[in-house]
């Protein structure tokens, strides 16, 4: 078996990669559905219906996609410069902690300042948390994957400590949760009914902004250059370390905003189950989007649909909800292969 670089990659082939990956994922996971004794097409139809079949389902899918868009963007930006930030989960919680610290009565500003302020402190907190791994990488060459992963566990324990200890809401009947965000700090609801909130607008704006930065600014160019070939970038006068640090700040900031949006938009207060692994799913989102900021939006919607749809599917037929996580994991592996096949061809010979 030999791998050969293709002379050129046609646009059609590149565009087909994520679609092929999604299709392959659904086919591979149908084995598990068959094992559960459910007809495959019926199961996927139920999943589709659960995600898009009613106004309520649609709203849930969009609500769930908000944190995924933000963590997906966070991962996409970082991976573009080959800075492997797997710590979006921890940075999300850092952002959530910042929003709770400032947003539960410490200060109260008019809503049009308070909401942006909370988003800002959340972004700063997320960026600050990622500053540790990025400085370790740039100064000491410590692998960032392991440090960001380990910090996820540290952050989760930190949250656990704060909501059981000093930040626990005394009015919460003994539940480990913080006090609620003040009214002026709450991200307003977008629709009269349902849980969809202004976080969606924040996420969409973030996607456009990140795209613009990557497409039109010097920093964006440098991020891509460093990711493509760090040595060549260094040689052409780009300060690689500085670029990676800026990348990390943007990445951590985006994940931090995800935390603020979940607290101030959806839950209202902070608990330990704020994120069922949004940070990790962000990796899948970014990969499916091929690290393109605008493609993160449909990719996040797709994975969100899988989660929301799988919930309702598993209620209707007897399939464990973990099928959604399996689909996400398989999709990461499938997209890797599909993207590779756009650039390389495999030649078999004996």
């Amino acid at each position, binding site marked *: *078996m*030999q*791998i050969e670089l293709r002379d050129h990659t046609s646009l059609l082939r590149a565009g087909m990669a994520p679609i092929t990956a999604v299709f392959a994922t659904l086919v591979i996971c149908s084995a*598990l559905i068959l*094992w*559960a004794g459910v007809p495959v097409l019926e199961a996927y139809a139920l999943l589709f219906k659960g995600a898009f079949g009613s106004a309520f389902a649609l709203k849930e899918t969009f609500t769930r996609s908000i944190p995924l868009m933000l963590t997906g963007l966070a991962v996409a930006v970082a*991976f573009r410069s080959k800075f*492997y930030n*797997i710590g979006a989960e921890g940075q999300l919680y850092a952002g959530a902690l910042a929003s709770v610290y400032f947003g539960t009565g410490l200060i109260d500003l008019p809503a049009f300042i308070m909401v942006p302020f909370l988003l800002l402190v959340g972004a700063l907190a997320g960026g600050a948390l990622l500053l540790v791994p990025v400085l*370790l990488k740039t100064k*000491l*060459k*410590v*692998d960032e*994957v*392991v*440090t960001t*992963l*380990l*910090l996820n*566990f*540290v952050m989760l*324990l*930190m949250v*656990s*400590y704060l909501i*059981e*200890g000093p930040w626990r809401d005394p009015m919460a009947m003994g539940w480990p949760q913080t006090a609620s965000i003040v009214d002026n700090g709450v991200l307003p609801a977008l629709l009269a009914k349902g849980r969809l909130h202004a976080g969606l607008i924040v996420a969409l704006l973030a996607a456009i902004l990140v795209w613009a930065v990557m497409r039109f600014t010097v920093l964006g160019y440098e991020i891509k250059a460093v990711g493509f070939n760090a040595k060549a970038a260094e040689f052409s006068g780009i300060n690689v370390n500085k670029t990676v640090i800026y990348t990390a700040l943007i990445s951590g900031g985006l994940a931090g905003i995800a935390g603020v949006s979940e607290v101030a938009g959806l839950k209202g207060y902070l608990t330990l189950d704020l994120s069922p692994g949004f940070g*990790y799913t962000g*990796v*899948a989102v970014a*990969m499916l989007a091929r690290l393109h900021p605008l493609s993160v939006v449909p990719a996040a919607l797709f994975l969100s649909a899988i989660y929301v749809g799988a919930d309702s599917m598993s209620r209707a037929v*007897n399939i*464990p909800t*973990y*099928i959604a*996580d*399996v689909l*996400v*994991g*398989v999709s*990461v*592996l499938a997209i*890797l*292969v599909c993207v*590779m096949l756009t650039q390389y061809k*495999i030649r078999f010979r004996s």
Partner: protein
Amino acid sequence: MSELIDILLTTGFWAATIRIVSPLVFGTLGELICERAGVLNLGIEGIMTVGAMSGWMWVYQGGDLWGGVLFAASMGALFGLLHATFTVHLCLSQHVTGIGITLFASSLSYFVYRMLLPSATTPPKIEPFQNYPIPFLSDIPMIGEALFTQTPLTYLAILCVPVVWYVLHRTPIGLAVRMAGENPVAVEAQGINVLSVRTGAVMVGSALMAVGGAFITMSWFDAFYFGMVNGRGWICVALVIFASWKPGKALLGALLFAGLEAMQVRAQLSSGAVIPYQFFLMLPYVMSILAMIVMARKAKYPQALLVPYRRGERV
């Protein structure tokens, strides 16, 4: 301070340390073998979960304990093959593939567990490995109870350290593995297939990781919980760097961490509510980061780690 010394002097502390060290030793040795061949295996967290689930499930379905260990190992090797196919043969990003394998492997374990035990609310239990005191040696005061009154899987873990060292450093196969991670072109020049060597190393390493996971459910505890591996895989990755890719040092590093964990459980009990328990639980993760910082300047990474090998390509 005197409390700490009291803890250090109890046999229970040392026995616990040796018990807790086992999964770390399996995992660290497994990762070490992969990385020595030039392949970073971030699937470790998921592969340990697979091992924990499959080994336990084998016994729960009526199999015997050693069969369970073997089953867990072969499941681990299978995921290792998947990782090797992607990273060694298709030359895909080792970082992203590893994370993908972890997501896939752990969610698949949970899915299979729920499929086979749909309505279990309290996790069912198995009869785990029992302590097997080694005759005579276990009669030595203190050391005997700590070192030689353990389950067979712990003995296996400790035994793996010299075996892995010997194979890596004293046999032709080990030389090929290490060369594949340092200078794959030289391996090819010897007429040895780099891709096969790397694939084999990743499969063996992954099998060891899975046995480490199986230890948690079959020897340490007797049931499978969700989130049971709880970052131990990532700690193993840090330990490999801490150990400079050497099996002996890996054991020392793992012992240090296990001692820390055994100590924090006891310190938690004795410190009462003065220091919140979460800070004790943070220790292993923080220590892992610190260990990587300490070793950062000295770390001698295998030269070809993370570098895919394409036959006939100019370097």
